[in-house]
């Protein structure tokens, strides 16, 4: 699918809502400062790929008609555009700051895409309004510094005491200015940056980024390299899903289960380290292929995978048979299938609600197209338990895939691990299925330098749904709901 330029904003929104009604998925919206004005880009995902749709706001435009009233999924995207470029989405139900809190006065916005470094922005967290209304309601601020080891985010729980009628999220605390940082980098340096956007999904981000570069330059990934990519992507999925199981067990006060899954996760990270030198799979994926074969031999890998599979599936079975645990998850944090579909939710959050658009199946890349990936039986309950079931199904599937690619790798002929075609100028979208869901990279290279790179993590797209899943849930359900989403704030705050 090719980039298309739509004449004006209204035309773009018409086309977008039409396509979404016809079954495509709205996958994101972002801006790029160009000399001729602000380029708005929407992403549409379908069976044939992820297509960017562009439209240009004339230079100097201070506002544009908002998309959110017509397509609710754009809610956070338009607030982010407001933060980054200072344009106002007119008609947006809540045009408040999201990733960048109100800078004082007339400070120039970062404007990604514009050459040069933006001036330092000192955020003023006091400038944000709170939303407490009604007698007897009060707000419990949860974060940004929390008890335990968590990434910084503030949840404002608005409650009359026990129930949570409304949750407000402030993600700006750890905004790092990642998108601007990409600009001016060589594609090779950009890869290092991409690996550190959302570190717990290092491999998926590297893959999505490299897929974009490979599409620009027309590179073909050699077969053994495609297998190594799948190997690391699935190990990463295991680590993330085991992390979620560990956190859920911790929330339920199951000390042994918490310890067991913590141990399994450590074993996975060590296996990744054994395979490539980094516990997070850094440095494996490079544009055109991979940097090296696994340092551990196929026999060694198969042994380790087999041992892990046995231990994990036994503990998972036991966890899913622990009544006191299941009681805490059942009907907790429900997301209806209609909302999941409407929002175009991603990853296990969507699958738990019976909505499934897995990039590995729908838009396969690397070796996935040849591995006979079959979707596991769905779990449509939409609660925290449904999301955990999906994760355990994916864990079992990852173990199968790991065996499959290790076997294939042992038989793969010796040959280059990388298409040495280099990089060229152009613009393309790349995608990969991270443990949290689909990651998108929209990359533009001019004269051998990145001029715009927009990573869109699944965490950003999914986290906004946390607003909607507290129907009837109480304060003590909070850690279960948060853990069951399994997202990383680093991917949200940018």
């Amino acid at each position, binding site marked *: 699918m090719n980039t298309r330029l739509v004449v004006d904003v209204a035309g773009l929104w018409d086309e977008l809502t039409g396509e979404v009604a016809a079954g495509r998925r709205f996958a994101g919206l972002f801006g790029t400062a160009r000399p001729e004005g602000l380029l708005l880009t929407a992403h549409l995902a379908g069976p044939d790929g992820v297509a960017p749709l562009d439209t240009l706001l004339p230079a100097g435009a201070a506002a544009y008609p908002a998309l959110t009233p017509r397509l609710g999924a754009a809610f956070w995207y338009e607030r982010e555009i407001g933060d980054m470029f200072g344009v106002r989405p007119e008609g947006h139900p809540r045009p408040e700051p999201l990733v960048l809190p109100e800078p004082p006065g007339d400070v120039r916005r970062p404007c990604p895409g514009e050459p040069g470094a933006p001036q330092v922005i000192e955020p003023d967290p006091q400038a944000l309004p709170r939303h407490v209304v009604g007698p007897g309601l009060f707000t419990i601020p949860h974060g940004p*510094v929390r008890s335990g080891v968590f990434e910084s985010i503030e949840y404002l729980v608005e409650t009359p005491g026990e129930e949570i009628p409304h949750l407000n999220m402030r993600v700006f605390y750890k905004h790092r200015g990642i998108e601007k940082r990409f600009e001016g980098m060589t594609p090779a340096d950009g890869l290092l940056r991409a690996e*550190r956007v959302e570190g717990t999904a290092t491999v998926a981000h590297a893959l999505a980024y490299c897929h974009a570069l490979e599409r620009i330059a027309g590179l073909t990934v050699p077969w053994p390299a495609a297998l190594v990519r799948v190997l690391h992507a699935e190990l990463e999925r295991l680590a993330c899903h085991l992390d979620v199981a560990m956190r859920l067990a911790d929330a339920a006060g199951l000390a042994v289960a918490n310890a067991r899954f913590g141990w399994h996760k450590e074993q996975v990270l060590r296996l990744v380290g054994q395979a490539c030198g980094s516990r997070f799979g850094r440095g494996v994926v490079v544009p055109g292929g991979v940097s090296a074969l696994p340092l551990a031999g196929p026999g060694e890998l198969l042994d380790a995978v087999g041992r892990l599979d046995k231990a994990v599936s036994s503990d998972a079975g036991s966890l899913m048979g622990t009544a006191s645990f299941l009681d805490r998850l059942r009907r907790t944090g429900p997301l209806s299938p209609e909302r999941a579909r409407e929002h175009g939710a991603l990853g296990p959050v969507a699958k738990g609600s019976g909505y499934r658009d897995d990039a590995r199946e729908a838009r396969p890349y690397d070796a996935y197209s040849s591995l006979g990936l079959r979707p596991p039986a769905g779990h449509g309950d939409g609660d925290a338990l449904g999301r955990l079931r999906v994760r355990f199904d994916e864990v079992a599937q990852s173990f199968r895939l790991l065996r499959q690619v290790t076997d294939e790798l042992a038989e793969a002929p010796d040959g280059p691990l990388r298409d040495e075609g280099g990089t060229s100028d152009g613009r393309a979208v790349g995608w990969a299925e991270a443990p949290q869901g689909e990651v998108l990279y929209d990359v533009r290279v001019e004269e051998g330098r990145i001029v715009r790179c927009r990573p869109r993590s699944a965490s950003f797209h999914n986290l906004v749904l946390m607003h909607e899943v507290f129907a009837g849930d109480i304060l003590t359900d909070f850690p279960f709901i948060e853990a069951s989403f399994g997202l990383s704030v680093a991917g949200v705050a940018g």
Partner: protein
Amino acid sequence: MWALRGLRNGVLTTRWPARPDPYAAAGRGPATVLDERPAEAGLDQIDTEQIDTKQIDTEQINTEQMGSEQLERICPTGAIRLADGAVRLDQGRCIQCGRCVAARPDVFGWAEGPAVGGLSRGGLVVPEIDETPERLAALRDGLRERTAALRRSVHLRHVDAGSDGTEEWEILALFNPVYDVHRLGIFLTASPRHADILLVTGAGARGMTEPLRRTYDAMPDPKIVIAVGTDAVSGGLTAPSYAVTGGVAATVPVDVFVPGSPPAPFSILHAVLLGLGRIAPMEAGR
């Protein structure tokens, strides 16, 4: 049922630092300098005028004809400097990408083992330069004196000031059965009022400046601050940016600097023990 599962695999816990641990010893640290003065001809005799610095792609450098400028430019965070023909590497900037090791295995290698953290920012430069042994000893003694009340039972508090999420995983790992730092009297606390040690991750996001400062102020004296990860030490690849301070030392006084992207759990544990004076720095200059 879970109680029996808990016994299933016996004791999984390391005994480090009392006993050596092979995984700790083999852990990959930041890059280090193997040969301070590479004797190879041509290192300083390349006509750097001919290189278009804008166009140079670090992967396409002809490593055999590398001149001093290229040697410095291998590193995406500018950790490598060449002064008077001698190579210096600032491990506080190293994001462990391995480019220098791949390009010049004769000059650069990987530091191994958990002892990667240091008591001063300058002490992370290898081979060490401005840190005289006397100054380091004074730093150590000062910290030891200040934190004499801590030692055997300490409580940790963590603040994320703009990490990529991996440092949190590695800190959390310290509480899994493999590292189980409770055995060393190290605990997490739910309140800054009970905290002795502050672990700070991330490049110093400006949105976190105030919460970080307030957490630090809320902790009782004596307190130890540990910058966990290259981003927290120097800003890593995240800095320079309009949104970060480029290291957390701009906001709170740091006692122990731990490079790594992210540092391994053993390295974080080493830093905690180093801050408490319960372990030797193991290497001269740290």
